[in-house]
């Protein structure tokens, strides 16, 4: 054969980068479009219109920060934020706690694991609307839990969270946890299954008790799992809306209002789009505040793989 270095110069030409593996890029177009048009575009649109005085229909009449000023001087918004904070913190902690505890119990090689797992998971199949209704019903003071306990003899028993502004968020929490802990349990269970059994053995030889092993060794090892769970829970909390509407509709009074509901109400009922957009922009900002550290932890820390 001939020498190779010259006549194969054609084959040796470096192809243009953009056209290498074209199928992969074509196949990613839906994703790229979604990311750019829907998420970036939609978000930008929302942010832009939050600086206008749009009412029923979006219109570009800029009013600066007026909407934000009003937003932050509205009691209902402040209460919404406060409620979300209470609900969010409690829900985050309790979901992780309960989810992990249940997973840990199921991980102890018990009989009937599949049955218990299905029981804990099935509420996740039900929508928040259904969840809200079911719990509204159970917590109904006239024929729900409270009444049943009273009939059993504790006349003074009072548990009426849905009509008590001070604890209504906990009424929501009961329902929210019921619906959401199953999935987290599943994730935790999957995480626990991924832990090297030798770690358990090592801890046992070291004479470390079960609880202590979980707290000091297993949980710190499950950081990535906790982060996944955290993201899921947090994204659910921010979106909290359906449950509130179904269970309390913000009541009693405005005691269980949440930001997403504020957004909807101002966009559609009060017909003040600008105000709704300003509120949703604030929600977005808080999402980003949450996400940036997470992204940093997830991607910034380990550049290796």
């Amino acid at each position, binding site marked *: 054969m001939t020498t190779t270095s010259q006549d194969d110069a054609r084959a040796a030409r470096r192809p243009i980068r953009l056209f290498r593996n074209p199928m992969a890029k074509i196949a990613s177009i839906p994703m790229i479009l979604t990311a750019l048009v829907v998420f970036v575009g939609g978000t930008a649109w929302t942010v832009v219109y939050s600086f206008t005085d749009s*009412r029923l*229909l979006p219109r570009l009449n800029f009013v600066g920060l007026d909407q934000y000023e009003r937003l932050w001087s509205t009691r209902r918004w402040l209460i919404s934020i406060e409620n979300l904070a209470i609900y969010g913190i409690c829900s985050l902690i309790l979901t992780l706690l309960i989810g992990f505890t249940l997973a840990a119990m199921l991980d102890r090689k018990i009989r009937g694991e599949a049955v218990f797992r299905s029981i804990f998971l099935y509420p996740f199949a039900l929508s928040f609307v259904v969840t809200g209704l079911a719990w509204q019903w159970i917590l109904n003071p006239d024929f729900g839990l409270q009444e049943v306990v009273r009939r059993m003899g504790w006349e003074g028993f009072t548990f009426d969270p849905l009509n008590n502004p001070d604890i209504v968020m906990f009424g929501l929490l009961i329902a929210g946890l019921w619906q959401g802990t199953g999935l987290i349990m599943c994730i935790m269970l999957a995480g626990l299954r991924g832990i090297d059994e030798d770690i358990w053995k090592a801890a046992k030889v070291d004479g470390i008790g079960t609880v202590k092993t979980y707290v000091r060794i297993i949980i710190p090892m499950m950081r990535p799992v906790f982060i996944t769970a955290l993201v899921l829970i947090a994204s659910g909390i921010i979106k909290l809306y359906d449950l509130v509407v179904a269970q309390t509709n913000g009541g009693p009074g405005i005691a269980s209002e949440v930001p997403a509901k504020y957004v909807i109400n101002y966009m*559609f009922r009060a*017909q*003040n789009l600008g105000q709704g957009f300003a509120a949703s922009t604030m929600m977005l900002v808080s999402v980003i505040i949450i996400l940036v550290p997470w992204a940093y932890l997830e991607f910034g820390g380990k550049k290796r793989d």
Partner: protein
Amino acid sequence: AELEVTHWWTSGGEAAAVAEFADAFNGQTEHTWVDGAIAGSGGTARPIIISRIIGGDPMGATQLNHGRQAEELIEAGLLTDLTDVAEAQNWREVINPPSLLDACTYEGRIYCAPVNIHSAQWIWLSHGAFDAAGLEVPSDWNEFVAAAPTLMENGIVPLAMGQQGWQQNLAFGTITIAVAGIDAWREVSVNRNAEVAAGPEYTAVFEAVADARELARDSNVQDWNLATNMVITGQAGAQIMGDWAQGEFQIAGQVAGEDYTCLPGLGLNEIIDTGGDAFYFPVVEDAEVQAAQLELAELLVSPEVQVSFNLAKGSLPVRGDIDLSTANDCMQKGLEILAAGNVLPSGDMNLSADTQTQIEDLMAEFWSSDLPAAEAQARYVDIIASAD
């Protein structure tokens, strides 16, 4: 053509009333009524309706509270101009009070068909409850307040109140007109005079509302008709609710004057407002649907349909020229007031939805907390001052 009609009339009385429309439409025209009921009041339905209209895929007709809600849709050219139908049917003449049509008018053109008159300023009293407590049925708010302690002693909730902002706001409005009187009300609600809102008349109003709040302490239902049901069954002494409550009494087979009593203006100030529902017809391209829209608009205001519909719904017809002798006691009272011209324009037509939402939020909070009357008033004054 099939005409999709969106509305949020899903309670018993309401549904029966809508059926009257649908039957008439199906019976008297070539077209078919496709029912697009969405339960959960305007809050749920409105985003859907508006999204579909601005998304370019509108329904054939839709219920909206008339007033300022639709203005922007009209401006954007999304709603059908009904002026031709209105002129042909002579709506200007027959519709009473004329303010109803004014609310449908934008720059001289008519964009909606009013279907009923609702007034909010009523209190409904349960004969059963007062009998049980051994009391006379009160004839005005003050007597009612005086009777309340006895009711409570008998385990009866004096005032039924659904725990929703709009119901609480409605009670507030009703008490305002009864207690503060029409002039003060007009200054505040129409002219947005914050000084009056801060004045003594309104102080009295807020105190009265605070009293009412105490009377409604033990009422923990959510929906308005569940509250009405408390009155029907005698669990509660009274409810402040609009005239649509009557539909519920009717369905329950109760007779005005025998089983229950209705007092317009709380028996203090016999003035009612003239809000109401109206149908709008989004602009569509299909010519057949367009025709159907116009026919429906015509039908909605036609005398027979007005009678059957309003009898079912318990509201007042929008026409002054029809005979409602079959109407019951309460409706007759309303008609008399209407005939006497003791009407106010509805808040829908005065304050923007935005401002109303804020007031609702305030009321929701006020009714379900121990917020002092003075503080609530102060916040009310702020809202009025910044209303647009």
